[in-house]
């Protein structure tokens, strides 16, 4: 993967460059907007890591220019500005994701991979957690290779939980997403989840009582 890193802080720039290179990525690191523009002219990048406060201008202007010229190049903003309005400003300007400093390397890598996947059109492929696989183009679900039949609502719920594995999905989000028709029934979500559990087996969907549901990538240490 070819990454263009635009970051004026030497320590962060070096660290990110080495960390990403160690992961097998090709990193071009520039520290000024002008250099970034020059590099964008000559090389083909798969992804841009953009710091907002640069010595010769704001990263947002580069982002806006980029969006006018090449629409598909994924941009991940790296910044110390953490207010909601700053985030919205960045995302509105056309950023694909936003990471606030200080960040964990693992999170940076996971978001980079997600962005790359999306831009290469990988997203429609199989999502798999501990043998539970979901193949989006064919809407097929299988547990350790054995196909499972799910209703439409059940499929939508499972795909949301699987694609956002390890992140608790709130009841509100799940209800809004899959139960638009029967919003009045407060038990509908529980019924769907229990049906899914019966079909795919226990140990995949974990309840966070009162909050929502989550599929953990790693098997929990304690109860199923």
């Amino acid at each position: 993967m070819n990454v263009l890193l635009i970051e004026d802080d030497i320590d962060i720039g070096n660290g990110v460059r080495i960390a990403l290179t160690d992961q097998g990525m090709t990193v071009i690191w520039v520290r000024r907007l002008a250099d970034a523009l020059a590099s964008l002219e000559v090389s083909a990048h798969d992804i841009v890591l953009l710091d907002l406060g640069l010595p010769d201008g704001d990263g947002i202007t580069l982002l806006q220019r980029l969006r006018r010229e090449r629409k598909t190049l994924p941009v991940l903003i790296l910044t110390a500005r953490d207010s909601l309005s700053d985030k919205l400003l960045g995302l509105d300007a056309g950023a694909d994701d936003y990471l606030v400093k200080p960040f964990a390397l693992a999170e940076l890598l996971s978001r980079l991979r997600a962005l790359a996947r999306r831009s290469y059109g990988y997203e429609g492929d199989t999502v798999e957690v501990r043998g539970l696989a979901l193949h989006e183009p064919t809407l097929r679900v299988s547990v350790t290779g054995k196909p499972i039949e799910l209703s439409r609502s059940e499929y939508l719920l499972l795909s949301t939980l699987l694609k956002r594995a390890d992140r608790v999905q709130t009841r509100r989000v799940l209800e809004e997403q899959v139960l638009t028709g029967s919003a009045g029934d407060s038990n509908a979500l529980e019924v769907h989840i229990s049906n899914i559990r019966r079909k795919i087996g226990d140990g995949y969907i974990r309840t966070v009582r009162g909050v929502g549901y989550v599929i953990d990538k790693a098997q929990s240490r304690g109860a199923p």
Partner: protein
Amino acid sequence: MWKTIWRAIVTPSLTRRLMLAQVGLLLVVWVAMVVIIIRDIAYTDQWYAPRLMNNRGTMILAVVDGLADRPIELHEALTRIDEFQRNEHREEDTQGVRTTMMVWVGDELVYVTPGERRRVQATTPFVIEHSVQDGQRFRSWMQPSTRSKARVVLLLPSDGEQVFLALWSRGFVLLPIVVSLPALLLPAWLSVWLALRPFRRLADEVAAKGPEDLAPLAFDPKHRELKLIGNSVNELLERLRSGVERERRFIADAAHELRTPLAAMRINVEALRERPHSSEDAVLLDGLMHSGDRATRLVSQLLSLMRSDADPHTANYQPLRLDELAQERLAMLGGIARHRDVELELDAPDEATVVGERQGLITLIDNLVENAIKYSPARGVVRVKVSAASTGGAELCVEDAGPGIPAEIRERVFERFFRAPDQAQSGSGLGLAIVRAVAEAHHAKVTLGVSEAGGLRVLVNFAAQA
């Protein structure tokens, strides 16, 4: 009770000062009047009274000499004169106050006022003399006849009684003052009280200000003296506010600037950790990561503390669903909980709306739940409950199964950088300070207690807002 009254009396007050000034002035006027009257009496004794007495004596002696050979008629005439004199000044006919008369011819007492026991035969003629007899002080006038041995002696009341009598007889001058002086106290007090009302209003408003409230006074007095005070107070508040704001912004900026080097440190350590290293190096790298994380957390807490301290008037307050916000934040914190092997549980059956600032409330919930997760034992449960209070507000309750906080330090844990002794967990000591700052900005009350599982229970009470 007496102590309170006494304190109220001795404590200086402007009202009392004005009152005393008024009363003092009136007293001076009053005393001046009395002095003038006493001087008037002294003048009377020296110049006016002798002339009057001389005429009186001459008149009486004329009667005595004229009726010398007709004792019955003489006695009759003297009795009439005596009666007239005794009631002359409308004073009571009592000994010591009345004018007493004695008429002597040679050594024989021809007439004496009935009931009079004093006997005065002779004094210096034509002079008002002061004498004492039987312990009684009085003044006397003696006048001999030019034609016979007859003498008339008049006993008059003493000076003190004379002053009293004079005051009495001049009552038409003094009475208004004597009567109105106490009656003046109430209107004087009332007028002073009324006049000082704007002053009290200013004092009340300054007193009602909370420690965080540095907004200018709402009361704008029109009076010259008060305007000065009001303006000075407002200027002081303004200086304080800009000082506090400058300090707050400095800390926020400093914290913000610290994030970049912290980010650099973290990414470098992580890059190093991904490379081949010995197991001893791994321990050192973990230590580096750990302290880096602590510094990062401290910096982000400092930032949120400075943000929650920001002027509440400029923040964006709006009605928010506390139950939905809690669900959202618990979902976000699910990862940390799982990492620590702690179970999260939310009980939010009803809609609970509070008027608040979203970022602040997120900070409050996150800090409480993160704390609860941190101090929970492995496989412990963190219970969060959101409910609508019957009074219209809302209540957020976070319970854990950790060690709890002893009652004696429950107030101190809200202090910035306070860390409970014998703490097993590392922390900044800012979490609860942030919680309280956010709660205060939202007019909410934070109470610490013991949870059902024996750990800590934090109760945040949001009052109903109009």
